[in-house]
């Protein structure tokens, strides 16, 4: 027992160190002070001809590196240094990187994960450049809405513009032409086609409800069951908006019905999106609802046997609305060369960039550009163009509030499993919305 004292003394030392650390800890986390905003008079569309180096932080490639190369051809004096980080790590680290002294000049922007950069004043309001370059005519307006927000970054589609897209995506329905002769023209026709596959003993629709596939299907149905303005207002955080609408009820019930009728594989809730895509690519199902990002892989596996259509409307009118997102880029408020960075953003809307974006697997920002698309991706571009030009791209529902994705994914799983009612599902979404935006 004579050993008792020294450990005690050690404990005291440890306690002292702990206390000291705890006290010094209070010095950290002071938050970040916003740098002074750029003077409006400095905004210019001409860029200096002497050498300039910009850094660009991003996670999506393609198209970023190819766009950088394309820009370099136009402006040989500008060097853009790419900093690539895999998506999951990017989302966690970019906020810190942007608040640091060595912040990248341009950063790929994710409105859901990065919107706290707006109230912190760490990314520039691009409206002065939008006016100078005429961006509202160059970028599809609906794609700029989700990248615009008020100063608190709670309400989208209003206030400042914080990023512009450098590649668009769109969600629709892929079908296997060996199992389905013709793309259905209306929602009832689509349901009849699903039933036909089911009756013949096949798997109607691959669904990756473990991740985002489940609510992408719900979203696609919602686009054709009701007024798109209501849904947009809700995602944008327009005061007083609600998702507990008849349209959302109808979309939810359609999805539940399809689950009851056995249109989804039994293990949909445990299937990741890439696995759902792989199942469809192997010919194990007739339909798959996902974005154009899957096209390259599907074309490789299925060749000419795969087609694409937007979720058809109940009446059979051509679909005017589709869900989509973008790879967007923002400019750091700490950048020493905001005009040069803005020139890069402007380049994203050019016809040259359109080709690069399309070849990188995206839909081009310049929707009228001749990209020479063939096969499946050409088919997607054909149906996407009119929708984008008619302002028909709507954002994904997980942008509506930061915690929304954790209501959507489990909620869809519960609907498929028959464990949740339509009203309970919509209520859970609205609760998350109210928690973020206030009633």
């Amino acid at each position, binding site marked *: *027992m*004579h050993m*008792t*004292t020294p450990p005690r003394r050690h404990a005291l030392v440890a306690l002292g*160190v*702990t206390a000291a*650390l*705890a006290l010094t*800890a*209070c010095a*950290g*986390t*002071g*938050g*970040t002070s916003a740098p002074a905003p750029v003077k409006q008079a400095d905004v210019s569309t001409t860029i200096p001809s002497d050498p300039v180096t910009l850094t660009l932080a991003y996670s999506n490639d393609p198209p970023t590196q190819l766009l950088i190369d394309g820009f370099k051809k136009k402006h040989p004096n500008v060097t853009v240094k790419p900093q690539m980080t895999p998506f999951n790590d990017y*989302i*966690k680290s970019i*906020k*810190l990187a942007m*608040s640091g002294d060595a912040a990248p000049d341009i950063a790929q922007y994710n409105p859901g*994960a990065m919107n*706290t*950069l707006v*109230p*912190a004043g*760490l990314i520039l309001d691009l409206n002065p450049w939008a006016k100078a370059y005429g961006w509202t005519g160059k970028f599809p307006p609906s794609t700029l809405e989700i990248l615009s927000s008020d100063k608190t970054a709670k309400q989208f589609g209003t206030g400042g513009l914080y990023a512009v897209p450098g590649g668009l995506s769109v969600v629709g329905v892929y079908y296997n032409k060996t199992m389905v002769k013709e793309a259905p023209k209306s929602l009832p026709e689509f349901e009849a086609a699903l039933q036909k596959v089911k009756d013949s003993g096949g798997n109607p629709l691959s669904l990756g*409800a*473990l*991740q985002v596939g489940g609510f992408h299907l719900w979203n696609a149905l919602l686009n054709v069951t009701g007024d798109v303005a209501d849904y947009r207002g809700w995602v944008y955080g327009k005061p007083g908006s609600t998702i507990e609408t008849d349209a959302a009820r109808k979309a939810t019930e359609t999805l539940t019905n399809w689950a009851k009728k056995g249109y989804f*594989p*039994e*293990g*949909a*809730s*445990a*299937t*990741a999106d890439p*696995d759902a895509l792989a199942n469809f690519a192997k010919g*194990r199902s007739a339909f798959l609802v996902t974005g154009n990002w899957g096209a390259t892989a599907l074309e490789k596996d299925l060749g000419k046997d795969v087609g694409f259509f937007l979720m058809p409307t109940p009446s059979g009118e051509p679909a005017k609305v589709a869900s989509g997102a973008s790879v967007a880029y923002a400019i750091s408020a700490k950048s020493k060369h905001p005009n040069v960075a803005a020139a890069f953003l402007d380049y994203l809307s050019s016809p040259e960039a359109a080709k690069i974006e399309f070849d990188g697997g995206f839909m081009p920002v310049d929707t009228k550009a001749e990209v020479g698309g063939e096969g499946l991706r050409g088919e997607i571009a054909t149906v996407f163009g009119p929708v984008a030009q008619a302002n028909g791209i709507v954002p994904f529902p997980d942008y509506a509030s*930061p*915690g929304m*994705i*954790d209501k959507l*994914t*489990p*909620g869809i*799983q*519960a609907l*498929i*499993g028959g*464990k*949740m009612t339509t009203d309970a599902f919509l209520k859970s979404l609205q609760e998350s919305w109210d928690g973020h935006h206030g009633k």
Partner: protein
Amino acid sequence: MASELSSPAAPPRATPVRGGEPQVIHPPKRRLRGWLYVLPALAVYLGFAIWPAINTVRLSLLSWDGILPATFVGIENYIKIFRDSALFEAILHSLVLIVFFSFIPIAAGLLMTALLMGKVRKGMTFFRVVFFLPQVLPLVAVGITWRWLYSDTGVINQILDVVGLGSFGRAWLGDYQLALTALGLIGTWSMSGLCMMLFLTGAQKIDPSLYEAAKLDGANTFRQFLHVTLPGVRKEITVAGVITTIAALASFDLVFVTTNGGPAGQTNVPGLLVYRLAFNEGDIGGASALAVVLTVIVMTVVGGIRYFTRDRD
């Protein structure tokens, strides 16, 4: 005991011991040198374990999104997370996981030890490698592999089909009732080898004469195991219990890649909720508060295990 505790510790004597050189009190300088040796490890430990832990406690009292200035909110974050029923469900799930991560692997490890001890002379290394392999593989790879094994067209259902039990087949991880069990069994697979390794190592330290004595007393194999092997590896059982219980309560990576809490929250665990609060919702304060609560739970359970298995001698 009491008198010993209250009496001051005997100071080191400067008198000659066993007639050798006189033992001197270490001067302060030598003491400092001792600390110097400890310093590198201590700095790493303080910087990367203790400091983040203290910082987490501090953050749990703040409302902070990771960027904007933080505001002090006291215990508000704690009140908020305790009002959310999701936390209790998640804790319940992690307690169920203890059965699969801890109880079953320890039992399996003991069984394998009993079977392998003293009987297998050749090929022991082979068994060790095979059973320890799950510990070497990264859990993310393990998780994705098991997700495929468990899928509706996966190997497990194919095997069931072959043996005529196809009607029991299902998408295991997507099944409302069985997802947590299916997830737990991945933990069992991963932890059993670790337990067996620990127990085998412990059992090899046991004096062979004890087995001989037991044999002479007429003890059969089972009795020998019960009265010689089992007491001999008691300390290892405690260690295994602590390690596996922490793995169950603080599980994250495995759940994140296999079910991500699904279907519909049936496999939510506290670690997953911490991640979502911090990285999906940007609520660093709430995430820290939940992490502190999780730490307290882990320490309580581990403390309980250590208390009940303590040396009573």
